[in-house]
């Protein structure tokens, strides 16, 4: 398992070299979006309107941080569970998204979209939001302010630690649970 330092926006070459299990330290600009923001983002795409940020080469982080205390750029900021975004993810990947960051397994359609459009899915440590926030140096809401905590944020990250869960070649890091060993097959 290799370790990479990558800077956004990501290119096809950046993504193709990655294999499930690789560690990546991400720097540059990434965007937050979760359930409600994805719904609105896809409504814009359906009607041919421009998304609030350039999707080509972009990285979306499935996060909805806690409020920033006065002395910090952002509050606690760990990943939310990704399968809820699978309703929208294949569409967003088709517009050039190169990576999403979350936790938990993706569905077949999203995994296929990652193969078809040369993209990846990163996992970040769920429940380590205080720690992960220390890799986010700037954060500001850029769209869908009306969604409150679910608004889209532009975040500047420095060496944000992620693991490749699904690569662009069909590789996956999550293994199937061993029901036989647990006595429940």
């Amino acid at each position: 398992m290799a370790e990479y330092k990558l800077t956004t926006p990501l290119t096809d070459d950046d993504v193709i070299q990655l294999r499930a299990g690789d560690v990546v330290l991400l720097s540059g600009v990434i965007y937050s979006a979760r359930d409600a923001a994805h719904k609105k983002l896809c409504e814009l795409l359906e009607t041919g309107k421009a998304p609030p940020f350039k999707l080509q080469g972009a990285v979306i982080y499935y996060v909805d941080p806690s409020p920033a205390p006065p002395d910090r750029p952002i509050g606690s900021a760990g990943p939310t569970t990704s399968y809820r975004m699978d309703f929208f993810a294949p569409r967003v990947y088709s517009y050039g998204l190169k990576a999403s960051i979350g936790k938990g397994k993706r569905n077949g359609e999203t995994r296929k979209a990652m193969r078809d459009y040369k993209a990846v899915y990163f996992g970040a440590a769920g429940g380590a939001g205080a720690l992960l926030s220390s890799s986010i140096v700037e954060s500001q809401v850029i769209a869908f302010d009306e969604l409150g905590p679910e608004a889209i944020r532009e975040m500047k990250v420095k060496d944000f630690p992620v693991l490749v869960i699904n690569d662009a070649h069909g590789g996956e890091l999550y293994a199937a649970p061993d029901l036989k060993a647990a006595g429940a097959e």
Partner: protein
Amino acid sequence: MRTIQIKDITEAVADMCMKAGAELPGDVYARLQQAKEKETSPTAREILRQLLENADMAKKTRLPLCQDCGIAVLFVEVGDDVRIEGGNIREAVNAGVRKGYAEGYLRKSVCDPFTRANTGDNTPAVIHFDAVPGDKLRIVFLAKGGGCENMSRVTMLAPAQGWEGVKRFVINRVADAGANPCPPTIVGVGVGGAFDRAAELAEKALTRRLDDIHPNPDIAAKEKELETALNKLGVGPMGLGGETTVLGVKIAAEPCHLACLPLAVNIQCHSHRRKEVVL
């Protein structure tokens, strides 16, 4: 009769919300440490190291342990010899949640189920009241995050399925949940009562300390049996494999209808924000 002022209840609840948000209970921290020592997989050890570092950092900086500061669930036990003065206890608890989530910079995650409009202050809380003997008021607070809550289930088994059926359902639930609920998790199992009561029992089971032992030796053995089985699933910390899929299993059981075997599985993430106060 002892008199408790309503404002003291609000203050106590606000304080619990803030402390629970940033301080991992000692018994949970200790279990994570033990798990890290025991794990042989470097990935599992690294994830557990990050979770411990996260807990240290949250305690020091007062940043929330997790950005999902949960829906507030409170168990309120009112002693028979307690008189509450100055207002309504449900309103006092909600006022405490409102205050704690605002002042603690905790995320407000409660919304209308249909319009999805955020209520803005993390209320209403889920409050379970109980009448108990004595002259004390005991409140236990749990912050339930959405990721693990979504992996919880209630089912009605046939009585013939018995303990084997219970075991099979719990194991399959934890297996299917995989990485979603932020393993290593704590599994609350409610057995008996009725459909609604089983869910409440499963939640209430999570209010126990991880290092306690169930007073009924048969149930204590069943907790151990399930914990051992679940840790053979290989889901591991954050679903990346390893021997620590759960930090503990807590069972709460009650008599039920002779035609039924109600069962609820409430999965709680490793960020087990739990706090208790006795007034």
